[in-house]
């Protein structure tokens, strides 16, 4: 029973740690499926987290914070879009620039306003996205096995978490069952064909980049208004890059993306839980080994030793319309 309880605790924390990954990963999926490579997820997440915390601090409203976080992230996405789509820039360079500017700018402005080394003031509960209790939580609580699972894993999460879990099937449906999705996938594989069909490559890619901005902005909002109650410099702590790894690991597909992000979230939860723990027969497992596992797994997959991760064919390639 003790093992079961600690498993529930680990899984619950895996969900909490997985949510920002899911949102950022699916965000990257939209962008990259349209042919725009995005290594700037980290910077946009940070921007979203910062804008959300600042506006929530001044207005006291979580929803105003959410709107600000998403708007800021979309604005940054549009810069990346302008560089990648209109200026035909190297998309890796553009993403790198966004990561640097976001990292410096959020800390700089936060420090200039509150003089707390870039940290924003602690937000009251009313300015945060609080866990919501689904019906029958209290009634089911005493039931063994089912009770803890329902109250810790299924119920008692905030709205952004539920949205994150809905976004994978939604994305799957949009990409594979709608006309927009078909065109978007086509533009990432063979933009010339889409152009020949009389559709705007530019319009489709801008659309994808903006969807990406909304989703990754939400992951930032989650960091500052749900997981924590403030913004802190560098608080995304590489989550944007883990999401990128998850995207590669999931081979740019929505359902595997959801599963991979939960797996990486689980590994993160495990590494926190395993600090100093001794496994019989193995001795102390170094926390760093578990932390490095997502990256190692992604490299091994990329190397083609377990299946092959093939990116969308036109990703990273600016489209030049023939004249």
């Amino acid at each position: 029973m003790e093992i079961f309880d600690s498993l529930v605790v680990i899984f619950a924390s895996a969900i909490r740690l997985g949510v920002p990954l899911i949102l950022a990963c699916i965000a990257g999926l939209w962008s990259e499926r349209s042919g725009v490579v995005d290594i700037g997820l980290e910077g946009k997440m940070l921007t979203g987290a910062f804008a959300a915390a600042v506006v929530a601090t001044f207005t006291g409203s979580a929803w105003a914070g959410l709107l600000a976080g998403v708007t800021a992230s979309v604005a940054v996405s549009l810069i990346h879009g302008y560089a990648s789509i209109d200026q035909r820039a190297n998309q890796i360079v553009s993403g790198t620039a966004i990561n640097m500017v976001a990292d410096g700018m959020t800390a700089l402005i936060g420090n200039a306003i509150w003089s707390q080394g870039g940290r924003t003031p602690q937000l009251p509960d009313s300015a945060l996205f609080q866990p919501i209790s689904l019906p029958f939580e209290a009634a089911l609580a005493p039931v063994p096995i089912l009770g803890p699972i329902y109250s810790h894993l299924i119920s008692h999460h905030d709205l952004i978490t539920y949205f994150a879990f809905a976004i994978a099937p939604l994305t799957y449906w949009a990409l594979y069952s709608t006309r927009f999705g078909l065109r978007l996938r086509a533009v990432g594989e063979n933009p010339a064909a889409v152009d020949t069909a009389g559709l705007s490559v530019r319009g489709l890619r801008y659309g994808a980049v903006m969807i990406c901005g909304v989703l990754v902005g939400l992951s930032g909002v989650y960091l500052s208004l749900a997981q924590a109650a403030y913004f802190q410099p560098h608080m995304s702590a590489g989550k944007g890059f883990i999401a990128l790894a998850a995207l590669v690991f999931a081979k740019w597909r929505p359902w595997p993306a959801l599963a991979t992000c939960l797996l990486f979230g689980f590994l993160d939860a495990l590494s926190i839980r395993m600090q100093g723990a001794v496994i019989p027969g193995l001795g102390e497992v170094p926390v760093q080994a578990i932390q490095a596992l997502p990256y190692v797994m992604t490299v091994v997959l990329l190397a083609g030793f377990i299946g092959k991760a093939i990116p969308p064919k036109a990703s990273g390639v600016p489209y030049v319309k023939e004249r």
Partner: protein
Amino acid sequence: MSAPHKPLPGWADVALIPLINVAAAFIISGLVVLAIGENPIEAVKLLVGGALGNLEGIGFTLYYATSFIFTGLAVALCFHAGLFNIGVDGQAYIAGLGAALVGLYLPLPGYSQAIVAILAAALFGAAFAAIPGYLQAKRDSHIVITTIMFNYIASALMGYLLVNVLRRPRQMNPETQTFPHGGTIPQLHELLKPFGVEWPVTPLNLSFFLSLIAAFVVWLLIWRTRLGYEIRAVGVNPTAAVYGGVSPARITIVSTLLSGALAGGLAVNVILGEEHRLVLEFTAGFGFVGIAVALMGRAHPVGIVLAAILFGVLYQGGAELAFDKPKISRDMIVVIQGLVVLFAGALEHMFRRPVAALLARRVSQPPI
């Protein structure tokens, strides 16, 4: 969309456009300073004064510049082969391990200690870069993604080694003991003392001259050797290079090896030149500064040295500035760095069209 770019006169291409791009980055940085309620002109004065106003400032500026020359060269070398090595930071981190292992466990006579430590740093950096290079060349794994992953793998590996294996006994900080066998690189103030020259105590060390030699060697390699020609050929057009008898796979591996070895220069400067022990996260993101330096210097060693000195001024002056004006924290330098990457890298062609149009108009006007 019309033809991407009208041809520009050579001077505009080499000097004017890069200057406009960097100026745009600095103008926006000035607006940011203005927005947080400080005076940008005063800030520039404090910054430049702190970096170049006295010998101590200059010493620190050149010490930082040394690191940036090495990382800038590392990034630029891969640029020439058409590769984007984002892993310079991780490669330099692992290079530090190589230098430290020699410093801790391999006593050697006299100067050979330092030389072997430098070689070990280059070797470890190259070996760590070789894995993504090999995977790109032979398994077609995108080097951008793998080098990002390798940065985190390096960070986890070094964290483990420093906390659990190499840490000095009875010491909480994750750092090794000071290298017992010497083998460190002499600092300038020590070298100048016998000649009666009083140079203030700064971390500036002989690595600075090593970095200048490295810049010259990279120039020789890229523009004066057969290998350099092959590297550029693969960078411009891998398919055409194959017809010329060049193997892109071989060039990819060789370029990443050399790039990783150059990244090791950061470890040489910081670990052997200043710290004299291995410390956690000593690379401090300087591998990423290399990206800005390489882009700003247009991947040419002369440009890289100049850009590295500019970034040295920013890092040293920025520290002084943050001391005088707490509102302009050191994060400002990261913002400037990012804006330089944005304007000199991602948006490098943004001003090209208007400038071309402007120049064309002036040329086409008939002389009266």
